[in-house]
C-alpha cells in the first residue's frame, strides 16, 4: 500500500485546490493508500520515519524537490520506493522521471515501474537532483517568494533584473577526485546528478555513479536575466561554461558561501560533495529522460 505525504505549502498551496480530485483519481486506480499532511519544518521526515516503521514500502511525495529532499534523507531502508506527485515550484526530479503533472503522476504510480538512481551527499545530507552555489540561490529565493504570492510577475522580473545587475561572481577553488584542481570566478556552479541541465551531454544519467559539474564563469546582465528566465542557450556560451565529471569534489572559497541542494540551502563552503553509496528506488515513467 502507498503512503502519501502531502506538503500543503508546496508550490504556494497548489495541492489544496485539487486534493479531492486527486484522491478520487487514486481511488479509481486502486492505489488510494493512506494520506498524511506535514504541518511544518521537519514534519515530512517524521512522517516518513513513521510510515517505514509501520511497514509501508512505497512513500509518495506530494510536493516539490524540497519535499522529496526531506523524504530521501529520512528513508533509511533500501527496500522502500519513492513515488511523486509534482506540486512544487521546482519539480526537477519529477520532470526528469517523465512525470509532468498530477494526472500523469497517478497513472505512473499505478503502473509502478521502479528504477534505482544515484544520490549525492553533501556533508551528511543526501540530494537527488543538483547542488548549487551562486546565482541559482538567488533564483530559488525569488521563485519561492513568487510561488508564495509575495512577488507578482512584474515585481519578480524587476527583482531578477536587479539581482542580475548587482551579482558579483564568487572566486571558488575546486578539487576533483583528488586528481586535479580548478580555480575560477563563478557566476554559478551546479553539480548535477544526471540530465537535470539541458546543456549537459546526453550521456549524463542519474545511474552512472558520477556527478556533472557545470561552472559558469560570468554572464552579461542581459544573459544573466535570460539565465534566470530559463531562456539562455548555454550551449552557445562556451568559453564561459566549463563541464567536468566527478565522483567527489571539494569546494573552498575565501568567505563562506551558501550551498543549496534540491533547491534548499543545506551547507556553506568549505564543503565536500560526492556520490553516495546509498541508492534510491523511484517510480518512473516510460518517458523518463534516461
Amino acid at each position, binding site marked *: 500500500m502507498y503512503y502519501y505525504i502531502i506538503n500543503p505549502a508546496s508550490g504556494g498551496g497548489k495541492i489544496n485546490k485539487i486534493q479531492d480530485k486527486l484522491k478520487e483519481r487514486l481511488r479509481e486506480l486502486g492505489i488510494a493508500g493512506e494520506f498524511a499532511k506535514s504541518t511544518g519544518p521537519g514534519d515530512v521526515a517524521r512522517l516518513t520515519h513513521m510510515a517505514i516503521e509501520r511497514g509501508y514500502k512505497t512513500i509518495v511525495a506530494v510536493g516539490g524537490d524540497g519535499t522529496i529532499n526531506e523524504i530521501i534523507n529520512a528513508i533509511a531502508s533500501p527496500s522502500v520506493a519513492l513515488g511523486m506527485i509534482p506540486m512544487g515550484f521546482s519539480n526537477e526530479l519529477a520532470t526528469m522521471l517523465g512525470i509532468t503533472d498530477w494526472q500523469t503522476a497517478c497513472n505512473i504510480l499505478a503502473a509502478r515501474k521502479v528504477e534505482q538512481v544515484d544520490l549525492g551527499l553533501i556533508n551528511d545530507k543526501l540530494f537527488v537532483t543538483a547542488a548549487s552555489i551562486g546565482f541559482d540561490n538567488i533564483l530559488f529565493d525569488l521563485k519561492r517568494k513568487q510561488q508564495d504570492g509575495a512577488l507578482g510577475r512584474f515585481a519578480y522580473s524587476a527583482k531578477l533584473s536587479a539581482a542580475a545587475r548587482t551579482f558579483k561572481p564568487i572566486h571558488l577553488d575546486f578539487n576533483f577526485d583528488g586528481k*586535479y584542481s580548478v580555480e*575560477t570566478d563563478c557566476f554559478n556552479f551546479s553539480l548535477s546528478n544526471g540530465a537535470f541541465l539541458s546543456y549537459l*551531454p546526453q550521456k549524463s544519467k542519474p545511474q552512472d555513479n558520477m556527478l556533472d559539474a557545470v*561552472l559558469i564563469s*560570468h554572464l552579461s546582465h542581459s544573459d544573466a536575466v535570460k539565465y534566470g528566465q530559463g531562456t539562455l542557450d548555454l550551449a552557445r556560451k*562556451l*568559453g564561459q561554461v*566549463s*563541464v567536468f*565529471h566527478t565522483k567527489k569534489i571539494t569546494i573552498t572559497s575565501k568567505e563562506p558561501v551558501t550551498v543549496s541542494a534540491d533547491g534548499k540551502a543545506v551547507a556553506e563552503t568549505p564543503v565536500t560533495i560526492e556520490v553516495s553509496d546509498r541508492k534510491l528506488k523511484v517510480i518512473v515513467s516510460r518517458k523518463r529522460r534516461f
Partner: protein
Amino acid sequence: MFNRKEEFVAQAGAAETVVGTSVKLKGTLKSDGDITVDGSVNGEIKTKGTVTIGPNANIIANVHAKNVNVAGTVQGNVVATDRLNVSESGRVYGDISANILSISAGALFSGKSTMAENIKEPEIELTAEKEEIVEDVLEPATK
C-alpha cells in the same frame, strides 16, 4: 578544424569535458570522452577521445589522445594515436607524434615530429628537429 568561432563552439558543445576560457586547471585531466580546453591547463591531459584546444587556450601539459586539434598554445609533448591537426592560430612547443599530421599555414611548431605509423620504416626520413613556421599542410603522402 575550427578557423571560425562558430566551428569551435560546435565542436566544444559535443565534448564531455570542457575547460572554459577563464578557468585555470592544475593536475591530470583524464577522460574516456572528448575534452575541449579554452582556458589554462598545467599538468597532463589524457583521453581515449578527441582533445580540442581552443584559440584562447594556454596549455603547459603533455597531451595524449586519439585525435588532437590545436588552435591555441601548447607547451608540452602531443601524442595523437590517430590524427593531429594544428590550425593557423595553433602554437606547439614540444615534440609531436601522430598517425596523421596536418599543420596549417601560419601555425607554429617547435620540436620533433614523429609519424607513428611509419616508425617501423627506417628508410623514410621522419623527424625534424629545428624550430619552424610551417607554411603548408603536411600530410604523410608528402613525405
